[in-house]
């Protein structure tokens, strides 16, 4: 574990260590089947495989927009946590999704979320969903997230109790 409190990558490093836990701890995330694949400071990547039970248009096999919303919402929230120097969780205030083109049947979707500004109480994010590379965009999003105050008695990554 990285013990330098001033290292801006400290929380992202903790998240990288616990990426398996982050993938399994969200029931609705498990149901839709996405996983986080990479965490950097303020930046998170993931993959959402195609599956029959996620189809929104039975005539074309295109995945429903709600799956992409779930995916980008989740990745954006994680990007906020990965942008901070103290362990803080966030709650979505609002999220806008623009659908560029339908996802192709059978192809996995790559997601990428960036937290580009952190204030005292709010984080701003943008995110992309695409096939293989960003020039095959499926959807983009812009979001704002509220930073939750630490819960009394919660453990910091150093194991000290925070007030």
């Amino acid at each position, binding site marked *: 574990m990285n013990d330098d409190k001033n290292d801006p990558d400290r929380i992202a490093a903790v998240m990288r260590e616990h990426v398996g836990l982050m993938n399994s701890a969200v029931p609705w995330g498990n149901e839709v089947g996405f996983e986080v694949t990479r965490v950097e400071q303020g930046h998170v990547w993931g993959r959402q495989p195609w599956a029959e039970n996620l189809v929104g248009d039975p005539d074309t096999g295109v995945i429903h927009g709600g*799956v992409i919303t779930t995916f980008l919402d989740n990745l954006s929230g994680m990007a906020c946590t990965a942008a901070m120097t103290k362990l803080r969780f966030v709650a979505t205030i*609002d999220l806008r999704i623009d659908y560029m083109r339908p996802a192709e049947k059978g192809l996995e979707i790559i997601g990428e979320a960036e937290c580009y500004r952190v204030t005292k109480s709010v984080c701003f994010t943008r995110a992309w969903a695409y096939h293989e590379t960003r020039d095959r965009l499926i959807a983009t999003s812009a979001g704002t997230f509220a930073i939750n105050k630490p819960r009394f008695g919660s453990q910091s990554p150093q194991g000290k109790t925070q007030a």
Partner: protein
Amino acid sequence: MNPDLTNPRADEVDAILRRIPFAQTLGMRCEVLGDEMTAILPFQEKLIGNVTIRALHGGAIASFLELTAMLQVFLISDMPRPPKPMNITIDYLRQGHAKDLYARAYVMKMGRRMASVRAEAWQESRADPVSAIVAHFMVAQD
């Protein structure tokens, strides 16, 4: 039969919902009275996003609202197929608790090419919505 209470599109809405695999994954259903529709998302463990505070996942709520908005456009139109979404903006207003969720959608503008729709989801009281969306759908069938 009272024509005000019986919408021939109501059975089609039900048939569409049963044909969409993702709507079945969510487990939602709809009740239609005339041109009014209430969507219902019965609580299930798999809809949870945060196990510590037992809150519904925002993505599950947004998915439910997007489907409700889409079905409302279909209900009041004569489109052969449900419309395709262009964009959706979600406001998360309150925590969604581990219980049933309800939703209604209002088509604010039904144009020739696009429809603008607002939808709200609530639990205890309709006056205290959990989340609201504004969505735009393509309604031109080219």
